């Protein structure tokens, strides 16, 4: 099981305690502070890091070099930027923004079909181009954030998820889908071509307390234990710091045979302790 450093602590996110989240953000107020922490975590032994495409995160993967054996897991889009845009100016403003920010070549070669079909599927690669830094190392994982994955699931537009995966693969990266509804997403992925499934990683919540595990811990456990063509990465494994005992959380995760886990902390000692506990 590979271990990936999460990014919640860099951006003040804590799903269990908002005040704690705000405090950790102060520690990582610069790109350099984040890079230093990532490097130290990699030195401890972690197999890579995850980072979101927000204003700071967008710059991180091209600001320093990881050893070639280590992995970058990069998530798109930055939800709050787009949510603010839609809140203030409506959904069509979002489309206008995408066209305005895209390169001319991207618009000429990738947009005409959208203008004809009006199908969002035909503009996905333009959106992806906006969110991924041009020099993101090849073979990095590029994930679709759960707010988008799960919305698309709800709209029953599974074709968009397949198109996302294909667009990411065409760019030389491996696709990832973050979801809070893994069993529903699994039904969709089963219909993807095998070659897409083999490149794919699905990221979802799983932990001993069942916090933010939907529809239930028991059902998601069964899903994890089932063999799939794609890889699985568990997140929220420590219940956002709200678990009764870190030891219980880690022992539970070790029973599940996940391909990856992702976790964070603002304290390197905790990273090291968790790394050793998961490795043992």
């Amino acid at each position, binding site marked *: 099981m590979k271990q990936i450093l999460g990014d919640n602590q860099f951006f003040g996110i804590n799903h*269990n305690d908002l005040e704690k989240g705000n405090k950790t953000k102060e520690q990582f107020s610069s790109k350099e502070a984040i890079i230093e922490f990532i490097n130290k975590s990699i030195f401890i032994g972690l197999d890579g890091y995850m980072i979101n495409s927000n204003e700071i995160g967008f710059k991180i993967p091209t600001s320093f070099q990881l050893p070639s054996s280590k992995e970058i897991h990069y998530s798109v889009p930055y939800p709050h930027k787009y949510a603010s845009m839609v*809140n203030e100016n409506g*959904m069509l403003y979002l489309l206008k923004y995408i066209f305005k920010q895209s390169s001319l070549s991207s618009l000429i070669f990738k947009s005409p079909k959208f203008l004809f079909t*009006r199908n969002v599927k035909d503009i996905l690669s333009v959106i992806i181009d906006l969110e991924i830094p041009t020099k993101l190392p090849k073979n990095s994982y590029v994930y679709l954030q759960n707010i988008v994955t799960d919305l698309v699931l709800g709209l029953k537009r599974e074709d968009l998820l397949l198109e996302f995966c294909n667009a990411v693969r065409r760019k030389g990266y491996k696709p990832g889908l973050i979801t809070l509804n893994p069993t529903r997403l699994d039904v969709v992925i089963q219909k993807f071509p095998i070659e897409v499934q083999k490149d794919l990683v699905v990221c979802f919540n799983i932990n001993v307390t069942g916090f933010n595990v939907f*529809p239930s811990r028991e059902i998601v456990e069964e899903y994890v234990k089932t063999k799939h063509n794609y890889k699985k990465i568990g997140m929220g494994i420590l219940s956002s710091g709200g678990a009764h005992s870190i030891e219980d959380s880690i022992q539970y995760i070790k029973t599940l045979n996940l391909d990856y886990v992702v976790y964070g902390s603002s304290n390197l000692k905790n990273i090291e302790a968790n790394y050793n506990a998961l490795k043992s």
Partner: protein
Amino acid sequence: MKEKSIVIYGFGRMGLTHYAILNQLIDNIDVTIVDLDKKVNFIAKKNVRAKIEADNNKLKNAFDIAIICTPPMYHVPTVNYCLKRGDKTIFVEKPFGGVNEDYSFIEEHSDRVKIGFVMRFLPVINWLKENLVVDDIIKFKGSYFSNSIVKKPKGWRNGNYSGVCNEMGSHIIDLSVYLLGFKEFQISNKKIKSIVSDTDDIVTFNLETNSILCEFHFDWVNKNYRKPVFNLEITLKDGNYYRVDQQKVELFDKDGELLTKITAVDFAATVPYYLRGVEFTRQMQDVISKQETLASVEEALITRRIIKNILG
């Protein structure tokens, strides 16, 4: 055979969210989306598996459920139309119209209308509703902070149907109505500031009801907040007090010592399909089932009267 016929008015962020959730909660649904914006319809027709309609007058047959997510100036006429058409359940997004609307027809048919104050469905609020004894409460403080508005909004969002009181404060005011159960009140010490928009950006006021003093503070131009955060502080007669936010309930004694803490992890709330928060799914589950937690017209109009008193 289709199980439920649903019409959704307004296909912005909330219309999209409710549609996605209902699409997952109900196996067979027949959805019609009505939006006056031709550009939205132009895109929606090719991307959403629903009937798209710009002209409401063409929809003559009653629906099982009407979901109204339009800008608030269209709430009252749309609800009236749905009532006359015979729609069985009508769900209207908050803030439910404006301060100067005529709600009389809706009040006459209020049993079919519910209003979407989604924070009622948060696990922390559910816990408070089950555990608070209103007669023990002497003070209620409610606040809502965010950095939602960084540039002056355009259109109706910069007018008197918008503002922090309507858009965000209405949630907290509704929580006070829901938890404290009052109908009559007196407002004092109101202060309103416009900072970024031309409408209210920061609002503070006091409200007295049933021997409970309530203090409210809403601010949606606060750069210290990445995500919207609400807080409640509820003081009891014995001096103990609760502090509540989206994620936890803490009980302190009168000296500030923590007595009990219950967090989101302890609640471990689950839903069959998650999008944006358990409260959004739970709200739609209530729409399609018992409707026990949704705000009634009477309750929503108390919130309306409070906001009208504040904004004038």
